[in-house]
């Protein structure tokens, strides 16, 4: 048996250089994290494929695939929408689009946060076998949840079509908000991934906080129902502002500059926290697996 491998793949690339130094200087740590982000971003095709395969795996063998999600979201929005519109004596044509939109967008936010907690720990076999930028795992999280969001958008489209309410070209104003969400999601993936790898009791804490956040944020109830002079109840709730920059344009409204400013401030704080914690934790994560 003579086996020869005449043309083994030998990608012609410049020789990479890996330099690792035990150092505690902030500049070194920041530079290493910057490299992680840059090299991770270069592996976007890998992150895209990983996210796509996650969805494919989750629904492998099921008839409708990810559309099960669309159906269950649709059923929930339909029943709750009619029920609450009746309870609160709101016009269905006004309340149902609001609820559909809020529910679908909130599902994205909530699952980015809860899956962000396991972003690194669930990739432990990769982390322990090859050197891979941690940013790839954060991108994978966003890709996966964006795909789910894409399926759920059908619910919103269906509601708009049935009720014949179209926000029109105004929806393009949701794009800056969505861009902000991508940045926030990546920051969440890095921050929670690292924190939860170190402290294994964080995920349940995050889970219960998210439950509270769901009820104190206008998702099922509308901000208008607070009544005049009680908007202060939304102050300091980052979920409201971050949700609103995407939700308002999709309802044909303007998000308002105060909402945008608050959303940017919260996002900046999140990114800063994520950067600080990751620059400290990055070199240690492999030991935490």
């Amino acid at each position, binding site marked *: 048996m003579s086996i020869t491998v005449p043309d083994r793949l030998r990608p012609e690339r410049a020789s990479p250089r*890996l330099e690792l130094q035990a150092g505690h200087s902030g500049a070194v740590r920041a530079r290493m994290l910057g490299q992680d982000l840059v090299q991770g971003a270069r592996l976007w095709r890998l992150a895209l494929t990983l996210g796509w395969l996650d969805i494919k795996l989750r629904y492998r063998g099921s008839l409708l695939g990810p559309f099960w999600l669309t159906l269950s979201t649709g059923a929930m929005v339909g029943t709750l929408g009619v029920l609450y519109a009746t309870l609160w004596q709101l016009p269905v044509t006004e309340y149902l689009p609001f609820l559909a939109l809020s529910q679908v967008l909130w599902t994205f936010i909530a699952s980015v946060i809860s899956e962000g907690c396991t972003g690194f720990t669930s990739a432990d076999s990769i982390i322990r076998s090859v050197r891979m930028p941690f940013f790839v795992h954060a991108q994978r999280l966003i890709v996966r949840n964006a795909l789910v969001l894409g399926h759920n958008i059908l619910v919103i489209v269906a509601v708009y079509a049935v009720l014949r309410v179209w926000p029109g070209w105004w929806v393009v104003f949701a794009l800056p908000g969505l861009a902000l969400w991508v940045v926030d999601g990546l920051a969440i993936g890095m921050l929670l991934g690292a924190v939860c790898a170190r*402290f294994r009791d964080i995920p349940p804490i995050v889970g219960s906080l998210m439950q509270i956040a769901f009820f104190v944020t206008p998702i099922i109830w509308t901000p208008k129902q607070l009544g005049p002079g009680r908007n202060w109840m939304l102050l300091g709730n980052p979920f409201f502002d971050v949700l609103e920059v995407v939700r308002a344009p999709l309802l044909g409204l303007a998000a308002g500059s105060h909402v945008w400013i608050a959303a940017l401030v919260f996002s900046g704080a999140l990114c800063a926290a994520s950067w600080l914690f990751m620059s400290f934790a990055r070199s240690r994560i492999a030991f935490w697996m």
Partner: protein
Amino acid sequence: MQGNARIDVAGLSVFFPLYHGNSRSLKKTVFAAAAGKLAQDRNRRVVVQALRDISFTLRAGDRLGLIGGNGAGKTTLLRTLAGIYEPVMGRIAVTGSVHALLDPQLGMNPDLSGRENILLRGLYNGLSRPEIARLEEDVRAFAELGDFMELPVRIYSAGMVVRLGFALATAIQPQILLMDEWFMAGDAEFRDKARARLEGMVRGAEILVLSTHMMDVIADWCDRVLWLDQGRIRDDGRPVEVLHRYLGHPLPEKPEPVGA
């Protein structure tokens, strides 16, 4: 082979923190801090010193063998050279594309099909689309998977998993090859075929770092041996000398010609 591959290791130490139930918990950590116990806890944190003060340099053409008992730090050193663990003290600098053959699964996802696992590996290595197609063909032919390519790795037989893992791991030629000893194992029929492929890859690599208990492989393939003992370098030199001291007697079967 003339190349620019190079490995520098200076004063490298790696400690593993041993997290018992309490230190994994935020609640316990916060309460300990509140009670003023954190500093004490820090100092008493149990660490395993996997590598201690390791220094060596390898240039293109070097073939290094790592020997030592179980837990001597051989695999940890390979993982550190691969950039998976980062130094706790000291520094490493590795120039050249690195490939680490550490465990047969090597990050394979058992729920994905063989083809999907190959795709992911190709993307990780930054291969273009045609290169990934070639990778797939190469691996499929070598691993003799046939129609199993489309089925999840989970249902493969143990032999098939090893063949796939091996084929995948040896499909891309690196400048620096880090290899753990499981690559010498495998079922008998597969071994000859695997050995031929592996030897091709070892010859093609500019630097080889090999960890094994098989002394004849070290004597055959390596021109330098590090003997690790509890994370320290106990001996460093030409295989014939170090193996003699390690085994307590000269290599039995293949005595190396003196002055080779």
